[in-house]
């Protein structure tokens, strides 16, 4: 057995064609044989009309039907004009053939060969006609099944069943099975049912809807040509056997007849539908243009188009959808707050100004958030009997989230020329454009925001370099510090400097406020600290000079707290001055006793005239012993709050320090920060710093 599915479609088609041609040659053979026999016998004994002959004829037709059906069933993209053109060409080739037959027949009349040639001519004519009507049928099948539905396929199959019956009938099978009287009513009933089926199939002309005016006109012309070809074939089929001097029933075999009925029916319907649809096509075309414009604006929303592109798209779409003579777009200038004409189509700014005469049309439309349709400009109060070529105006606001961007206008020279449909279309367009503008604006803002964030990131990096990355290492003193900012940059500051082999100078401070401003002053104090610690000055002088330096550069209303220490390891002495800063803890004898170093003076930058020195009286001066340590911190630690709104405070801090008494300075600083964070249950919303100094 040959597996047909494994064969390539082209090969199958080739086989079918060869078989078809062989069958045709067989038919010709029978005809020629009959002709030669008829010289001796009467025509009553002819084989033509017998079952064998009709069997070959049926085979010939069915094979061709399958072949042509296969050729036209695999058209994926429906192009009506191309298919109709192909059908017309097939028809023309056939007609040329028939015409050649007619001429050849006339020329050869009377010759011996002529008696045989007429059979060849007859079968050739039959062949041409069958190919044409089969092609027409299967091309129309593609049209009918556009798009495919179950019902349509069912009707088509019924049509094929009828064709099958016609073949069987032609073979005379019914005559053998039934009595002649039974077949007559079947025939009488069969033909009308088939005609009705053809009409039902012919109503499937959905493809016409997708053609524009020009395409319809072209396809209509092609259908007319095909109709002409069909007519020519019918005449030829009627006259050709007579011309050839053959005594047959003409070319009207019932199979072919069925194909002809179907072809005429579908051609006629298509011509009528195309013809009557022509006037309304422009409306559909406009609708489809509107849909296309709508899609274009929609795409503009999704892509990152800039303002001018969105406005251009809106204006083009609006003028087209409204069938307006001109149009323009007015937008609010974000910086100036003025309304400006930003785009025009088939008109100039001068002409628009002349028309508007400085009225507040756009503002009115934007405030109302509603379109304005002025049917006759001359009679409208806003236009004060303006004489202008434009007589009718439609303005639609461009709004998004209640933010007015501007308005789009379309104008016409004819009064009362915009309908509700136009208003609706333009309103939709303007809404879409509003959204697109909103998107574009958001994207722009986002880009700016990202740039600021990038800048802040840089600032954070710069600032983190202002704090010491490494603290001095010395066998008789240990340091540890932790600092974090609430925002990208902060106002906390600490620093440790070793002045000589036994002297250390420390500062911890906090600029009022958070963020960028605080960060600038924090950088300022670093400069002051490093400048002053190089000079050999006392803590009192340090703080007075620092106040002076800060007062000259710090904005009014800003201030800074600072604790400054000088530690002498030789004398085992600490001198500490507290300028408004949170008091430090001094733990003695391995957490035995604790002192809060509360004595202090005013914060820096509070009193900016020379009188600051008057307040600097109290300096803490104390000696330390091995096992003592100091805890310095900023108010971000003390003022951390929990969910109840309670502050962390001194007591909790002291308790936390005692918990980590035994540990290293690093463990202590980390322990304190974690204790505060646990208490606050989140990241702290203020800058904080902890600095531990231990005397081992």
């Amino acid at each position, binding site marked *: 057995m040959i597996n047909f599915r494994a064969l390539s479609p082209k090969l199958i088609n080739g086989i079918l064609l060869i078989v078809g041609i062989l069958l045709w040659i067989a038919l010709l053979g029978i005809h020629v044989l009959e002709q030669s026999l008829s010289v001796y016998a009467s025509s009553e004994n002819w084989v033509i009309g017998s079952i064998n002959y009709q069997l070959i004829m049926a085979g010939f037709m069915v094979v061709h039907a399958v072949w042509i059906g296969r050729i036209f069933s695999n058209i994926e993209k429906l192009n009506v004009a191309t298919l109709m053109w192909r059908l017309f060409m097939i028809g023309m080739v056939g007609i040329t053939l028939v015409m050649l037959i007619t001429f050849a027949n006339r020329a050869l009349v009377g010759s011996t060969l002529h008696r045989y040639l007429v059979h060849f001519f007859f079968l050739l004519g039959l062949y041409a006609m069958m190919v044409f009507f089969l092609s027409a049928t299967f091309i129309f099948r593609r049209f009918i099944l556009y798009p495919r539905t179950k019902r349509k396929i069912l009707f088509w199959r019924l049509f094929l069943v009828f064709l099958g019956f016609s073949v069987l009938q032609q073979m005379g099978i019914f005559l053998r099975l039934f009595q002649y009287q039974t077949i007559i009513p079947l025939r009488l009933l069969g033909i009308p049912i088939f005609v009705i089926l053809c009409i039902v199939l012919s109503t499937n002309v959905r493809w016409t809807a997708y053609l524009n005016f020009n395409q319809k006109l072209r396809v209509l012309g092609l259908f007319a040509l095909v109709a002409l070809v069909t007519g020519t074939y019918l005449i030829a089929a009627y006259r050709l056997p007579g011309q050839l001097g053959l005594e047959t029933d003409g070319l009207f075999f019932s199979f072919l007849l069925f194909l002809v009925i179907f072809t005429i029916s579908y051609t006629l319907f298509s011509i009528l539908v195309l013809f009557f649809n022509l006037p309304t096509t422009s409306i559909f075309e406009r609708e489809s243009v509107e849909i296309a414009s709508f899609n274009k604006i929609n795409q503009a929303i999704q892509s990152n188009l800039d303002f001018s592109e969105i406005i251009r798209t809106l204006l083009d779409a609006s003028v087209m959808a409204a069938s307006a003579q001109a149009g323009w777009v007015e937008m609010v200038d974000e910086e100036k707050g003025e309304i400006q004409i930003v785009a025009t189509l088939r008109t100039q700014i001068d002409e628009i100004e002349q028309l508007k005469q400085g009225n507040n049309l756009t503002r009115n439309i934007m405030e109302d958030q509603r379109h304005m349709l002025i049917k006759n400009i001359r009679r409208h109060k806003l236009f004060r009997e303006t004489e202008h070529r434009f007589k009718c105006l439609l303005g639609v606001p461009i709004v998004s989230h209640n933010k007015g961007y501007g308005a789009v206008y379309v104008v016409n020279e004819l009064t009362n020329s915009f309908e509700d449909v136009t208003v609706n279309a333009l309103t939709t367009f303007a809404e879409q454009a509003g959204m697109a503008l909103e998107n574009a604006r958001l994207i722009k803002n986002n880009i700016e925001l990202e740039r600021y964030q990038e800048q802040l990131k840089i600032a954070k990096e710069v600032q983190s370099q202002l704090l010491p990355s490494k603290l001095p290492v010395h066998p008789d003193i240990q340091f540890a510090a932790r600092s974090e900012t609430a925002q990208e940059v902060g106002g906390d500051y600490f620093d440790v400097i070793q002045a000589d082999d036994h002297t250390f100078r420390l500062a911890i401070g906090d600029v*009022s406020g958070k963020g960028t401003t605080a960060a600038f002053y924090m950088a300022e104090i670093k400069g002051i600290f490093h400048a002053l610690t190089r000079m050999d000055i006392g803590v009192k002088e340090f703080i007075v000079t620092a106040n002076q330096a800060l007062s000259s550069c710090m904005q009014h*209303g800003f201030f800074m707290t600072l604790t400054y220490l000088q530690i002498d390891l030789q004398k085992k002495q600490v001198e500490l001055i507290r300028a408004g800063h949170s008091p430090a803890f001094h733990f003695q004898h391995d957490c035995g006793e604790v002192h809060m170093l509360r004595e202090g003076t*005013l*914060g820096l930058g*509070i009193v*900016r*005239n020379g009188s600051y020195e008057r*307040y600097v009286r109290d300096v803490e001066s104390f000696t330390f012993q091995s096992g003592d340590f100091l805890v310095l911190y900023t108010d971000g630690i003390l003022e951390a709050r929990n969910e109840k709104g309670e502050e962390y405070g001194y007591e909790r801090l002291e308790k936390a320090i005692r918990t980590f008494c035994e540990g290293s300075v690093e463990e202590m600083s980390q322990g304190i920060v974690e204790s505060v964070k646990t208490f606050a249950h989140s990241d702290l919303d203020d800058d904080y710093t902890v600095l531990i100094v231990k005397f081992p």
Partner: protein
Amino acid sequence: MNITVTPHDRYTTIGPEGELDANSSVYLDETIRSLIEKNVYNLHINMENVTYISSAGLGVFISFIDEIEQNNGKIILTHLADNVHEVFTILGLDKIDNLKLHQGEIDPSLEF
């Protein structure tokens, strides 16, 4: 922020209400500035209805201290809550001659 201003013979009482943070302290700043422009340098600030004060709030009082001192004026703060009083003290504001802090109620006329 709601701020009441009540003029008296020798001084003016200012009563801010709510939280004195970076945003609301701007209004207090404006109020005090307008009084100083009218040469009113004796100010009584009733802190009874202030629930919270940030460093920006403190900055308002601080920014006027020099000017008030030059004009021999005085700022008296009364009804200071414990924690607010603590903040003022830590900052050393209690040491300033022409800024007086009172936790309770006093008769301001005695101070001026």
